């Protein structure tokens, strides 16, 4: 069953760069779908269409549809605030808000107006456990979040999104600045999370793509070149360009 269906999506920025050209794909639920490819391929742009974060950028034209559970999120009448709670995002550089660890996790809930202390505490513990961070921080939840290491901060960002009980989690090169151990922890958390969430990941290396992908999409200069189950795509790519990229002939 497909969670997100992209239907002939084309996107162009005001500075003339065309970021996406007629991309169509179906992203299955409860699995990790990886969008990989060389820089400028449109991976981040596509990701940001899913939660309408592209509204903040200088987009000139966008056409086509992005269906989430059958509803087009690109529709101007869409309630973007509700959408963004349903589709969470983790960015490349861990950006912790200037609050405590607890404050970071509860921020999204407080935005919704939730003030019940018990409910907030439950959310904090649940989210931090899901992000595999609870054991490391549960005794210092009131410390400033900035004091955490890079890897911990990134998992905190994950917990922050999880607190809103989303259905989809978008991750844009989440481990690009992290050491291998932290990277491993994040990848392990994602493997657990995919049982209940739909995960779309832009990896920072082909190797990470190969490790984590249940499904993979190869994007080259705004075009979707190939899409398929991870195992198949990485061992027997159908398109020559895909094979060239995976084997490192260009990057």
């Amino acid at each position, binding site marked *: 069953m497909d969670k997100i269906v992209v239907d002939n999506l084309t996107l162009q920025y005001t500075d003339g760069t065309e970021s996406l050209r007629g991309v169509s794909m179906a992203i299955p639920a409860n699995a990790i779908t990886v969008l990989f490819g060389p820089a400028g391929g449109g991976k981040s742009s596509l990701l940001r269409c899913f*939660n309408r*974060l592209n509204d*903040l950028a200088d987009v000139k034209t966008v056409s086509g549809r992005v269906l989430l559970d059958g509803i087009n999120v690109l529709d101007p009448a869409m309630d973007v*605030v*509700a959408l*963004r*709670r349903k589709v*969470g*995002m983790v*960015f490349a*550089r861990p*950006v912790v*808000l*200037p*609050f405590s660890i607890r404050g970071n996790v509860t*921020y*999204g809930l*407080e*935005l*919704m107006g939730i003030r019940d202390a018990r409910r907030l505490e439950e959310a904090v513990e649940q989210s931090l456990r899901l992000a595999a961070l609870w054991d490391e921080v549960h005794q210092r939840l009131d410390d*400033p*979040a*900035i004091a955490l290491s890079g890897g911990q901060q990134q998992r905190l*960002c994950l917990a*922050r*999104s999880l607190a*809103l009980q989303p259905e989809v989690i978008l991750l844009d090169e989440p481990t690009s600045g992290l050491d291998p151990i932290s990277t491993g922890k994040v990848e392990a958390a994602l493997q657990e999370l995919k049982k209940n969430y739909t995960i779309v990941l832009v990896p920072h290396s082909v190797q990470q793509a190969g490790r984590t992908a249940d499904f993979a999409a190869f994007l080259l200069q705004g075009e979707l070149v190939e899409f398929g189950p991870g195992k198949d795509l990485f061992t027997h790519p159908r398109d020559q360009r895909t094979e060239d990229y995976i084997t490192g002939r260009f990057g």
Partner: protein
Amino acid sequence: MSVSGSPAAAPASDSRRQFRATSVRRRRVQRIGFAWLSLMAVATVVPITLVVLYIVQQGGPAISWEFLSGLPSDGMRQGGILPAIVGTFYLTLGTALFSVPLGVAAAVYLAEYAQENVLTRAIRVAIINLAGIPSVVYGLFGMGLFVLFLRFGTSILSASLTLSIMTLPVIISAAEEALRAVPQAFRTVSVSLGGSRWQTIARVVLPQAVPGILTGVILGLERAAGETAPILFTGAAFFLPRLPNSPLDPTMALPYHLFVISTQVPGMPLQIQYGTALVLIVFVLGMNLTATVIRSRARARRQW
């Protein structure tokens, strides 16, 4: 590296000697130049420092509890300057009351809402112009609008409103800068978690900008507290038997008081003049120091 002077090595040693001579001259020029610039810097800073110290020395003996808390008598030649101190305090408060909310809101508009168009440019030009208008012209304007047209009369209200408009550009600029210094990433994160623009501003951006805004506000108020011309025709009075009762009363104020006692009161004891100047300086420089302390402490405690 020494130059061989023997004639047998003529061409090489000549050029080396020339090279050394040039660089010696250049170094001497530099030494003189550096010394001259240092002297200039010293000449800029030292005299006015001496000035402040001189006032402290001359005015210090006049400072006493009676001086600071008592009312004046004998045509100002004796007694204390409490009404002037209180007046300056009221004026500063009044200025803050009007200029801070308006200024911070305007800064929020410029930093978070405004787009790059003609209107925004017009606003920025207007701010720069407000900053450059001579203080006495503000006094004229204040008199024309608040004292006469709106019939507030010569009062704390008129003077505060006049000073507020004068202080507005300072606060707007400082606040806008403080808001822009907050990392853009915070806004993106807040929006991605479902926050609206105002929620993002109120919960993340503004609180982080508070130290910078506060510094700007204090520096702006410091200037307002020390100004005489804007209050000359809008609120300041020289000899008032009582402290002001309401915002519609005129008031004494330290800068105006100093001006009058140093130029228009015959037989004014020098010590009282210096004492008044000292109190004014302490008031103003105290604010400056507070702003500096806030600024450096905030920088150290920043969470980004």
